[in-house]
């Protein structure tokens, strides 16, 4: 590829800043992205980070082994809080997994070209988050070794699962989502894998990238097929963005526990999921962009747009909180009313107010431009949102269960060390996968970003 002169900006163009900054050309872009992967010497920082995260992953699997050997009593779950941290963590991770597909599928369909710089990153995050999410419901059942009974398969017992149960819908929703997200991610990555294959200098790399590049040559026909498939998958994935968290919310909404049994849950959960997903993307992207020298590709404009989305979803979530209270009051249902009063003033009030502070109050800082442009302030707010969204799931799951209909059964839930360490361990798994991704796969969708590079013809005119 030839060097393309940098376009000069007209005043009208500068109203909307370009999607790629700096002196990037098609080849320099390839160089920028691929050099991260092709670096002969793995940076020491990566090793340190990987050592920590893989140790945590090891701890997670060790604890899972302990859990399976001993029983789920190692968690703090009790009667009436039969679902504790594992379910909270599950919903938390599934929520985080939302940003990826939203960015890649919905924004793709809406032709939001700014997505190209961050979609690979966000999709990878989705896959890893869903991986973490998938672990928890599987191990949270009492008899893990029989968890396959959730699948509808012909068997000697002549038993189908119970199709009326939202948990079963959940199995389908999450597994479909994970499959489609993975395919979508992989499909978009094929041209980039081929680039890496072509640039590979060692046999191992040639073979590995070659294997996954599926013989990509970059012919027009292949591009045609790929883009068609990509579009179709995007169309398929779009309803999933809405459905997966809708169905996760059904786990709660379909039951009749006060505080769970409410029709607002599907939109509220989806908004919350997008909210937490974007917050996690920001949390990860800002340091990554800094460390891997991707500032030209992931520009302040990208970050600004994501902050705006976070702000918008924060307001939606805040509105949902308010609506829940209104509904509880308006229903005249004593149990429902108490569930919400108890959230605010009961023994878990600390969790509720942490949630409100982190999810509704702190994101309002994004109204100030400084918070949307200064990367570290931005990350600070995003981390608060991550914390707040974990607490939202905690508040919904635990406070509602801890005090339901009969006061004689009320109890207070206390997590155990195993609860905490498993949650920490799930972060270890997430970051382990992420570090491997950063080291071995193209973090930015090169082929797609190239399509939004300012075109040479513009500059010539």
């Amino acid at each position: 590829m030839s060097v393309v002169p940098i376009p000069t900006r007209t005043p009208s163009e500068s109203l909307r800043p370009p999607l790629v900054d700096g002196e990037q050309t098609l080849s320099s872009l390839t160089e920028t992205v691929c050099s991260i992967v092709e670096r002969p010497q793995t940076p020491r920082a990566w090793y340190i980070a990987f050592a920590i995260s893989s140790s945590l992953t090891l701890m997670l699997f060790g604890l899972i082994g302990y859990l399976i050997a001993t029983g789920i009593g190692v968690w703090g779950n009790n009667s009436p809080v039969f679902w504790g941290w594992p379910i909270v963590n599950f919903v938390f991770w599934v929520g985080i997994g939302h940003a990826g597909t939203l960015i890649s599928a919905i924004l793709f369909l809406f032709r939001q070209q700014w997505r190209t710089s961050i979609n690979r990153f966000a999709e990878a995050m989705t896959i890893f988050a869903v991986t973490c999410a998938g672990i928890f419901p599987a191990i949270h059942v009492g008899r893990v070794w029989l968890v396959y009974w959730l699948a509808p398969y012909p068997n000697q017992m002549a038993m189908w699962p119970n199709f009326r149960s939202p948990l079963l819908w959940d199995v389908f929703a999450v597994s479909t989502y994970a499959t489609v997200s993975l395919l979508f991610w992989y499909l978009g990555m094929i041209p980039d894998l081929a680039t890496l294959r072509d640039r590979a200098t060692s046999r191992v790399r040639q073979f590995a990238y070659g294997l996954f590049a599926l013989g990509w040559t970059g012919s027009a026909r292949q591009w045609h097929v790929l883009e068609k498939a990509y579009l179709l998958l995007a169309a398929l994935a779009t309803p999933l963005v809405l459905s997966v968290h809708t169905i996760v919310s059904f786990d709660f909404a379909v039951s009749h526990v006060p505080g769970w049994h409410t029709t607002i849950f599907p939109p509220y959960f989806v908004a919350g999921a997008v909210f937490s997903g974007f917050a996690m993307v920001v949390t990860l992207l800002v340091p990554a962009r800094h460390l891997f020298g991707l500032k030209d590709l992931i520009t302040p404009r990208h970050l600004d747009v994501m902050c705006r989305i976070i702000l918008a979803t924060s307001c939606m979530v805040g509105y949902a909180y308010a609506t829940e209270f209104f509904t509880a009051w308006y229903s005249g249902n004593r149990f429902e009313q108490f569930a919400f009063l108890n959230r605010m003033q009961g023994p878990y009030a600390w969790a509720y107010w942490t949630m409100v502070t982190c999810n509704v109050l702190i994101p309002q800082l994004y109204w100030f431009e400084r918070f949307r442009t200064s990367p570290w302030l931005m990350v600070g707010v995003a981390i608060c949102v991550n914390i707040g969204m974990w607490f939202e799931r905690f508040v919904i799951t635990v406070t509602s269960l801890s005090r339901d209909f009969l006061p004689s059964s009320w109890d207070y839930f206390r997590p155990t060390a195993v609860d905490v360490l498993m949650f920490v361990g799930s972060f270890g798994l997430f970051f382990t996968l992420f570090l491997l991704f950063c080291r071995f796969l193209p973090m930015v969708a090169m082929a797609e970003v190239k399509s939004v590079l300012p075109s040479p013809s513009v500059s010539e005119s």
Partner: protein
Amino acid sequence: MSRDTGTTYWRSLNELQGTPQFEEMLHREFPEAASELPDGISRRRWLQLMGASLALGGVGGCRWEAEQFAPFAVRPTNRTPGIPQRFATSHEVGGSGRGLLVTCYDGRPTKVEGNPDHPLSEGGTDVFDQAAILNLYDPDRSDAVIEQSAGQRFTRDWSDFDRFASRHFAALKRGNGKGLFLLSEATSSPTYQRLLEELQKNHPEAVCLEYESFSRDHERSGAQLAFGRVLRPHYDFDRARVVACLDADPLGMHPAATRHVRDWAAHRDPDSGSFFNRVYSVESELSVTGAQADHRLPIQSSSIRLVTAVLESLILQRLGDSPRETSRRDPGDNSDPRLASRLPLSPEEILAPGQLRFVEALVNDLVETRGGSLLMAGPTQPADVHARVHRINEWLGNSGATVRYTAEPDAGRLSHRAAIDFLSAELREGNVDTLIMLGGNPVYDAPVEVQFGDALQKAKTSIHLSAYRDETSELCTWHLPLAHAFEVWGDTRSNEGTYSISQPLIEPLLTGRSGIQLLAAFNTGNPPASGDLGKRFIQETFYSVLPESPGRAWDTTLHDGFLAGSAFESVNVTVSSSLQSTLDAISLTPPQRSLEVVFSPSRSVYDGRFSNNAWLQELPEPLSKLTWDNAALLSPTTAREHDIEHGDVVRIGSDGRSVEAPVYILPGQAENSIGLQLGYGRTAAGTVAGHVAHNIDPVGVNVSTLRSIEHIHFENGVTITSTGRRHEFATTQEHFAIDRVGLEEISGRVGDLVREGTVDEYAEHPDFAHHGHEEIALWEQPEQDGPQWGMSIDLSKCIGCNACVVACQSENNIPVVGKEQVLKGREMHWLRLDRYFTGDMDEPEVVQQPVACQHCENAPCEQVCPVAATVHSDDGLNDMVYNRCIGTRYCANNCPYKVRRFNFFDYQLPVVQPEQSLKQLAFNPEVTVRSRGVMEKCTYCVQRIRNISILADNDRRPLEDGEVQTACQQSCPAQAITFGDLKLSGSEVATEQSKPRAYGMLDELNVKPRTKYLARIRNPNPVLKATT
């Protein structure tokens, strides 16, 4: 409702949260997992004993072990493998017999029921009866004769002891038994008494004594005072319209409680057509009766003497006003309008206005219903209070009507506390050569000042026959294992005198002998031959001692379980005229503001004899809902005055004696009164209740260290100081401090969950319990063939005694989880008793509500299970399929009643350990033992339904109403639970459920529960009701 008081009360508890003592507790009292266990019995040994019949017994966990199976060459008579047999038998608690019906599977007793024909209970039981089966299979029970000499212990054989005994007793006999002392625990056994008398005859200088830690001796001395002879009062609740209990708990802690409850409950049914009784309770600590009372006056136990005097003077005034009554009074006494003035002060000065109003209303009721009223004093009250009560009952014409008297069979014996005092003194003086203790555990439970442990060492030879190698055994030269009542022959008399035989239901599992066998061996010098379980001694008594009665035939008595018509004869007595002078000598001190402490037997482990029974340790105390602990009960006000908080460990002291106990603030406790329960703090009980030598911490604290001979029941003038330490209680309700929001919500909800009304309200609006919810079905419910099972629970009758909870645990193989798990809120009881306090927190009303699976027709649990492990049966049961359950726990989340229990761990794992394997024999082979990761809950005793349906099907006949009884229903002494086919017109349950006061709890959720509650009806005195 005075919400303010309540609010403050609980707010002070709020600081309970986050206590650091929690960690410490984690390492305590996880009984069954404790690995340092004393030797139990191996399965192999047991098989040797039981022979091949056991191999058919469905013993769990034997799948991989090579075992010899052998069919019966000759099948024993009446034995079909797998078909249970029921035997009538009896056992004793605290010297009072209870008639039982024990179910045996293939020679293995598994379940205790009350004998439905027995006049004391008519099938009702209490927790101790129900839990007896677990004691039988307790691997901690002693299995060896131990000799201790020169500080060393040797495991011996019975033959070693027999050789020693024949030598030793021959020598004693030559000396006329001088230096021989024999201490028994209370027993009603006629054979035991006969053999004891024989021993006394053989050894004229021997001294036979009796001791019980919790003694009813004051009742005896009260009668002695009033009537000049030792008599036992019997109360007839079938005739009592007004009952006043002065520190008495006739429905809870009384030898005839099951009888009282049955009759009391029959008159708490507004639909029965008979009268509706009214109960007043004056007491320091909430008792089972107090919780059911229509009016309750919490007051110090030490003030009850004064209340009785006031009551007496007021009654006398009333009767004096009523000329008709003068003739009824004893001429020696009626001189006494002055009696009122014998009070040190006027009633107004003695009692607070509210208290006086209470007493006046009570007097009014007692007098109005005279001849049908009943006043009684509890065992803690001194003899003079009992004497006064007897006299009042006589004045009121209740004597011979609602209360009658029978002679005590052992009238001549020394009182328990005199006996232990005397014995220790003799021991200390070195007058005791040989001390035989048949049962009992005086080293643990004797009052601290007699220092029985030290004194015991002075005896040259001490022999202790005991089920466990307990605190006393450890200090004796010989420990002998005591057989369980289900292992040997014996006989008992229940409180009213009915004679019962105890028959062996299984050969002694652990080589034990009975007290009767031992006494007989001492008398004759011939130890029992192998296989001789003492039948002939019982038969000798049966034919020689018992009065001739028409039905007296051994076989009939053995079959029926009791000898009909053998109850004690009532005696006609009148209060002696010398009583007044005795009473005059007793000073009536006005009430003091000082603190008192009251000792009472634990409602879970009694005086400690049931300590090692895990079912009972984990049984939530009826009022505090406390498990695995005792506590110093304090009223909210007193706690506030002394700046003590719930869970603070305090030191309670008096006169050099002291005890450190954690404080439990219990609404309803009298001001300035501390309640302490006996039976805890065992240091050599076993793996469950604690064994210091094996590094198993004691459960609870031993309050005997504060008890003195003088103040064996209560003591005024104790001090209380905080130690600064904290303690975490494992309760099954209010697991954590309740905050203001929660408390307000509870008080708002309780009225809807537990619906209550008064007799008058019920007469006016019989359907007051209906809160106007209309059930709408979206689709037509399919019509089902066959029976539709349902249950009704009459809250008017339920006293919250817990018998049903233990019955359910025994019937359904429900695991015990230990204190640590209860602290985490993971107790497994399928049936629980919800207890709520309403009203003023110092004088609350208590409501009890048994809650088990309601078998909803629209069961919310069924819909959400992803693997269809909980489904509905055609006969309306909400079935739980353990095999299919993968443990998502979604069903439990969606259950509005929270009756589902989850196996967070393999809770039965400890029971399958080799050293605990004896416990497996307590399992009901009809019920699956659940593994970990599985949900479980009440099944309406589906195994009983199916068993009986099969029998009916075989006979090609429909099921009869009442044929199927659930375990809880069967055990209930109050008959509060009805079960049966709702479709069968005229069935008892259908009748109950169609009563206007029947309601479904949370029926507004439209889950259509199959269990319905009958609203509780109270019968308050209109005068008192108006003033409060």
